[in-house]
């Protein structure tokens, strides 16, 4: 579990969603080929060469300082470069711009939404030289390293990214924060994630066959959720590439489980009243989605205890107490992870109660209280059960434990439950970075 203050975590809690439809006043795609800047690509390749993954070095700080406009240019130019690597004879390239409004505006005018770049005799040799440089280093090597540059900017130095200036696309994805059930700020998502995804999609022969790309998606998703950041867009991309991966399905299920929680639903209520869409559904629909995703994760890996734990809790919230008891009991039999065991015991207590079985509920809560003696949730539940059976001494004793122990943030893993599924994310991300350092092709 995480030990960071939940206040901070709550303030950083984010749902990503485009709230409104596209606006017709879109920025024009960059003029081509006049806007092409070979120097920018050379510079970018230099940063990719110099940056040590996971380090906040000068190369990373340089990349973090690139403006939004520069990143939009880079989005097009890097795709052109990668195509030139694969097709050295080509002198004409069509690329979708990163700004969705630009593509939409062109479509509305009956134009091809892609930006076209034609290279004449003056520009083609410089592009060819850059492509040759990539071929020499190895295209997969370059795109992985480059993806890690942009991943590291987004994860290690997000505060160094220049704030967007000028008119922003209304359909640009935004990162929204929630604090105590109320909407906080909303900031436009950094384009570094778009670039990183585009680069991992360029891994050959196919990203869906590449274990490094799979691990990159798993690690970045888990690390985001560890930071209380639920990035629906990133998950959608991950599921498109790896639709059957148990870990990605699990993390997607966790996102929907979080969306069903009072925290998100309370945030959504005023938006729905104003006929706005918060980017997720009502609690019932979100629980259904979560259950379906956890089941698919378990189809892929039947020994995935944490997916079964989450499924059990969701079933309990759906009122399917007997099914929840079955799944959670299964977890308690199998798991060797103390945190998962604690959650399973706690949730099993609630499921037994819903099923009308007070005695096994008490045993489950007692198990949770034994596993994490200072955690208030189980003691409070035990105090309530003692009150029901008229055991005043036990009621007072359990209440004393519940209230006497709630004095530091990390007392009860329940408080970190929403982000606990991502607890391995930072380690996985380090491993992904190290894989590159060890000279992956």
């Amino acid at each position, binding site marked *: 579990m995480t030990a960071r*203050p*939940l*206040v901070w975590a*709550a*303030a950083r809690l984010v749902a990503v969603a485009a709230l409104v439809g596209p606006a017709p006043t879109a920025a024009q795609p960059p003029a081509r080929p006049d806007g092409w800047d070979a120097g920018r690509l050379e510079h970018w390749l230099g940063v990719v060469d110099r940056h040590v993954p996971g380090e906040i070095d000068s190369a990373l700080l340089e990349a973090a300082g690139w403006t939004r406009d520069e990143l939009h240019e880079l989005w097009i130019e890097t795709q052109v470069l990668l195509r030139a690597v694969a097709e050295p004879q080509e002198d004409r390239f069509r690329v979708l711009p990163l700004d969705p409004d630009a593509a939409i505006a062109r479509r509305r005018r009956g134009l091809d939404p892609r930006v076209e770049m034609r290279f004449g005799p003056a520009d083609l040799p410089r592009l060819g030289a850059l492509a040759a440089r990539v071929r020499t280093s190895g295209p997969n090597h370059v795109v992985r390293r480059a993806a890690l540059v942009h991943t590291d900017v987004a994860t290690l130095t997000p505060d160094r990214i220049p704030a967007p200036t000028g008119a922003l696309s209304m359909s640009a994805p935004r990162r929204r924060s929630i*604090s*105590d*059930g*109320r909407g906080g700020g909303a900031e436009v998502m950094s384009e570094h994630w778009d670039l990183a995804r585009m680069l991992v999609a360029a891994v050959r022969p196919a990203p869906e066959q590449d274990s490094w790309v799979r691990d990159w998606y798993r690690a970045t998703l888990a690390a985001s959720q560890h930071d209380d950041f639920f990035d629906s867009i990133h998950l959608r991309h991950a599921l498109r590439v790896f639709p059957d991966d148990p870990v990605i399905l699990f993390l997607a299920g966790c996102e929907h489980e979080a969306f069903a*929680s*009072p*925290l998100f639903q*309370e945030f959504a*209520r005023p938006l729905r009243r104003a006929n706005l869409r918060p980017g997720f559904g009502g609690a019932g629909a979100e629980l259904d989605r979560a259950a379906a995703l956890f089941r698919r994760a378990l189809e892929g890996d039947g020994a995935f205890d944490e997916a079964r734990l989450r499924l059990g809790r969701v079933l309990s919230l759906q009122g399917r107490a007997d099914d929840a008891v079955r799944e959670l009991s299964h977890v308690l039999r199998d798991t060797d992870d103390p945190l998962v065991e604690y959650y399973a015991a*706690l949730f099993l207590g*609630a499921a037994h*109660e819903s099923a009308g079985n007070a005695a096994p509920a008490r045993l489950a809560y007692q198990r949770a209280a034994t596993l994490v003696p200072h955690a*208030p*949730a189980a003691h*409070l*539940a035990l*105090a*309530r059960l003692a*009150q*029901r*059976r*008229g055991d*005043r001494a036990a*009621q*007072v004793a359990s*209440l004393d434990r*519940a*209230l*006497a122990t*709630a*004095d530091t*943030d990390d*007392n*009860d893993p*329940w*408080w970190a439950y929403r982000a606990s599924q991502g607890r391995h994310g930072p380690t996985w991300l380090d491993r992904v970075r190290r894989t590159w350092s060890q000279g992956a092709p």
Partner: protein
Amino acid sequence: MRALVAAFCAVMSLGQTAARPTFTSGVEGVRVDVLVTENGRPVTGLTTADFELRDNGVRQAVALENQRDLPLGVVLTLDFSASLKPDDLAALRRAGRSLVDALLPGDAAALLTFSHRVLRQVPLTRALDQVRAGLDVTPTRGPTSLADAALAALLLGDADGGRTLVVVFSDGVDTSSYQRPEVVVETARRVNGVVYAVWAGDGDTGFLRDLTRATGGRVIDIGKAGDPGPAFLEILSEFRGRYLLTYTPAGVPPGGWHALDVRVARRGARVDARPGYFSAAP
């Protein structure tokens, strides 16, 4: 309803020392806290003859207890979560002090504060200065565990066994409780005490409404940034103006849910009492 059944003995214990002899008794009694209002104002001067109480449809012989003989136990349960602004926190502290100042000698108070954590700042005590001092604690900011806090307050008041008033203040909806709201409301039907809530938020008060109704209390909505001080004093005054009916159930099987129907022989009067109680089977 073990807590209410035990009320006769427990009430006696409030002013007693451990040296006094104690005994167990087979007598079972139920105490029902009743508010009678007319045009929104408490009605005073009613006698036993004015009340009619039915337990699961069976009329009971009730007595009217002299509430002045019963000191209060007030459990102040205050939301110190991230949503509370500094000015609102200052107003909440003032409100808490004004309520404590209005208590009578012999009354007791406890202080719970909550964000995602529920903290017992001061246990139930007659040393009211401790409660006043407790109100100055630094808030532990975080999301809101309203249901957890309400449950802790109910159980704390119930454990005391006296005449318990739970005052819950919150400006935000529950976002981080482990206890489910319906479970807490169900507990409220089982324990002694009346819950009043002061609501300073703009969200759904459904949980607080259900919780207070289950005990015969109510929600006072003071709006965002409203001053809770007058509401706290209104609650205390209203609570002191309630009638205490006691009876030994007759003609109804023990155990399970007992629906209560309390009426007064006075046209236009409104009666607020808990809708029923749970009683453990003997």
